[in-house]
């Protein structure tokens, strides 16, 4: 069993594939690189921050660390932004930042070989194709693969402050 898995992973890395965490936004299925995921938790106690775009829900206390929360449903304009006990927050760790993203539900962890990932067509949708690595197919279902690092680092999301560099931030990093 273990060896079988091991060889599967080896094979994946050999042909450029990776493992993805899949989640749903409304009726669409998305996937992000599992290695960027830190943990998954429920949605509660978000402190609002003034004068921010609607998709920034605010910040939460994650065991003493202050983490911003982005609602991808609002950002991508899919599904309905409702919050209840089944609303899920995926905590991701990219660009030395910890960020939470709100999704409707987390489905699975899947391994996708590189050849099953097709480039995304130009759609003109609110989710810019720049942030889509490709469209994966899994059991006849389509999976939108998001380059979460690029998305979080983008100017649109306004999470990464380009005016202050990282060295200065550490001053108040307690």
């Amino acid at each position, binding site marked *: 069993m273990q060896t079988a898995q091991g060889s599967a992973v080896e094979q994946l890395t050999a042909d450029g594939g990776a493992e993805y965490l899949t989640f749903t936004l409304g009726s669409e299925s998305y996937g992000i690189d599992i290695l960027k995921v830190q943990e998954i938790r429920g949605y509660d*106690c978000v*402190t*609002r*921050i*003034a*004068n921010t775009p609607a998709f920034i829900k*605010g*910040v*939460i*206390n994650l065991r*003493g*660390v*202050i*983490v*911003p929360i982005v609602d991808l449903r609002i950002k991508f304009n899919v599904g309905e932004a409702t919050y209840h006990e089944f609303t899920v927050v995926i905590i991701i760790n990219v660009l030395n*930042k*910890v*960020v939470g993203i709100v999704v409707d539900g987390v489905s699975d962890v899947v391994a996708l070989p590189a050849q099953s990932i097709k480039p995304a067509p130009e759609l003109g949708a609110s989710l810019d194709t720049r942030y889509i690595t490709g469209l994966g197919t899994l059991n006849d279902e389509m999976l939108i693969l998001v380059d979460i690092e690029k998305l979080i680092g983008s100017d649109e999301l*306004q*999470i*990464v*402050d380009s*005016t*202050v560099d990282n060295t*200065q*931030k550490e*001053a*108040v*990093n*307690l």
Partner: protein
Amino acid sequence: MTTPSGETNSVDLNRFNQVFFEECAENLAEMEQILISLGDREPDPEQMNAIFRAAHSIKGGAGIFGFNDMTVVTHVMESLLDRLRNQEIPFAPEMIDLFLEAGDAIAMQLAGHREGKAVDQEVIDGVRARLQQAIDAGGRATAPGLPADHAEGAPPPQEELLPRRCRLAFTPDPEIFARGIRMESIISELAELAEPGEFHSSARLMDVPELAEVDPERCLTRWEFTMLTRASREQILDVFMFVADEEQLQIEEDEPVDRRTPEGEPAPEQGIVPAAGRRAYDSNETAPGAFGRRGNETEASFRVNVTKVDQLVNQVGELLITQAMLSQIAVGLDPILHETLQRGLVQLERNTRDLQGSVMSIRLVPISIVFNRFPRLVRDIAAKLGKQVELKTTGDSTELDRGLIEKIADPLGHLVRNALDHGLETPETRAACGKNPTGTLQLSASQVGGRIVIDVIDDGAGLNRERILAKALECGIPCSEAMSDEEVWQLIFAPGFSTASEVTDLSGRGVGMDVVIKNVQAIGGRVQIASEAGKGARFTISLPLTLAILEGLSVAVGEEKFIIPLNVVIESLQPKPEQLKSVNGREVVQVRGEYLPILKLHRIFNLEAEVIEPQRGILVLVEADGERGAILVDALLDEQQVVVKSIETNYRRVEGSAGATILGDGRVALILDLPELFTMHKKL
């Protein structure tokens, strides 16, 4: 030997290297400080000894840790110092500059080993040659037939002892080889201390295990040395610096051979005396010069890794939050039924506060650490610019957070450079203006309320309003003639601004002042400028005392809670309708004859508040940076200590907040930044 253990060894060695690097840097800093304080005077014997000790420690450490290139310069320097100390060579003022350059060369080598920076071998060879020249020149100037000493330098006359027989028993730590210590170098150093032909050593093996279990890296040998020596006990102990603990080395000294007690030195004690410890935290270590350490080091201290302290501060912060949470839960409990619990909680609160105070004090360091860098900088720059400058510092012992100290050094350096380059005039100009040709640059630090204020004051020409405005216009920075002086001064902080008519290698590249303000703002500070034409300028940096913990007032606005730093709060009140007025559509409140603008948090932060009418809510009167206002909130909740957390770690800067904290219920609350809030209010 297996690979894993090999790795551990190299890591261990690395750790010792770090200790050496730190000590070396400290020794260099101390040496430089003494040299600068001398000016052109001849050092007194105590200062001379201190410089010598610093050089000797660097050399000794470098030798032990295998940085042989570093011993080269130090060795020549030490020889010259030794000759000076023994008055074999007359002192010359140029030597101070020479020693300073030598210090720089060593610092460069240190940086080379520590951070892998490039080392300019030419500079090092040059310094070394000139040091050697000074020795040779001095040697010719005085009696040429001085007794040729061995390379280690002769012991100073007051420490010179008559030859006596010493027996040393050294039982090393079994891990000694793993620490990279080489016995042969210790033995040869010892042999140099001994009279010629009067050194014997023997080695004995102890408790040898079965051959199969022998680890060649464990030291099982015990050494015994017998020698006839003139060296003092300290010199012998110096050889074992970094090598032996007090229980590992025993020294037995006989009476001097010719039975005369040497002058000024008490007769060595008879019998086996355990050597004094050589660890920095050993309280026995008070003898000046012992082990090449500073003589005035009276308080015992030891080094702790900074990350450990930071971890401790973080953990205390978490404890504070937990304690606040428990207190909050206990509020809802019947005080009679749960009397013991309540008492316990009060006790807990007191203890946490004490603990927090102690932990925070670890992080506080005196600002003299930064100030001490400037005498050298000022001396060098003044020499380069041909200006005469006297540097004064006051409030050196003002303490602030270690994290801040590191961040403030650069901006402060910029301001000092700027004052020297643009502020102070040349001696001729000054004399022409009827001023003292020697300009004064003053650095002062003090604590004002919850903030640290650092002033950089020069008595130079002051800022030139017309030139700044003209330059701002030229650089495309928005400005107008109608601006107040204060606003004009702030223009120099705009990116790309520089008034220097020519670019020097010190300043004037237009990257400077905007970096200063950026760096200062990044640590929650502000810069204010006061200037008077012809009289001088004053740059005032004000910084928060610590970044980690803050006394705050928690207030509620609708669903949200905010923290107002307590040091800005004057009072809070429920306004009466007659106190509320309107000025040009803006609401103000009249308090004791003063009209204060009302800052409505729910409007500034776009919140849904319960209270919109000021007379139904509570006004918190605040003052920050000389500006006053009244913040409208729904309710006052609590006065508490909050742990400041950075929002910027994972998110961007949030306008109007100086950070965030975690409340007892686990929620995040923003800490208000008053000056920014005033600005936001004006923009509404």
